[in-house]
């Protein structure tokens, strides 16, 4: 693996994956923000994944829960 690829891979493991997994501390978030300024490809990937999530979540049609289901569960567990 070339040094450049290795560095890119380390960066991805350290920040991108962690950010997408919502595990970054606030210090690391700040560090990521600084790094992303100089890594437009990573910035694009992060931004695109976030765009995708927002798009799907805003358009997705959720199923409504029938009151009968809630009543049935409550009755079966004795509430």
């Amino acid at each position, binding site marked *: 693996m070339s040094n450049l690829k290795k560095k890119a891979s380390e960066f991805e493991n350290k920040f991108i*994956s962690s950010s*997408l*997994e*919502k*595990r970054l501390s606030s210090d690391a978030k700040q560090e990521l923000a600084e790094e992303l300024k100089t890594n437009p490809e990573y910035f*694009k*990937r992060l931004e*695109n*994944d976030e*765009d*995708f*999530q927002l*798009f*799907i*979540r805003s*358009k*997705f*049609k*959720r*199923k*409504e*829960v*029938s009151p009968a*289901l*809630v009543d*049935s*569960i409550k009755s*079966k*567990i004795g*509430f």
Partner: protein
Amino acid sequence: MKDKKAKIFTEEFFPQIEALNNFAYHLTYNQSDAEDLVQETFLKAYRFIDKYDEGTNAKAWLFRILKNAFINEYRKKSKAPQAVDIDQANLLKDEDEKAFKGFHDLREEMFQNMMGDEITNAINTLQEDFRTVILLCDVEDFTYEEIATILEIPIGTVRSRLHRARNLLREKLRNYASSKGY
């Protein structure tokens, strides 16, 4: 003890019923089956409530129960287990780079004009394993770590499966939008 159970159900479990019902529906494609699955999930949660730590992650705990009930009970009696279509997954490998470059497509007007039904139907056409990670991550906002726990798969598998699922969904949406002249 009964008061404690009632408190957990009222404050932590019942608020998750809509998300559970939604997930169950998109696994079974049948409202009656989905309701049976949700009911079974709550009954199991009641039976095994001693294994739940109050105030922790009720949503992930209940989703895991529902997923296991779906695999162990519902799927067994309805059809053979579904696995990721390897051919379909391999085809996507070649498309990944292309799709990466086209990420911004989803902000284009043609996609924004799509209705919720069209997006939801596209998700429903995905293979079960791909559909599941999209539902858990993009619809329900679980972290990769939580998804790994719910599905009992390594976190790396979550990451790669989600990447493939998103690319496949983008491709379906792109084709659909083109066919409709958006």
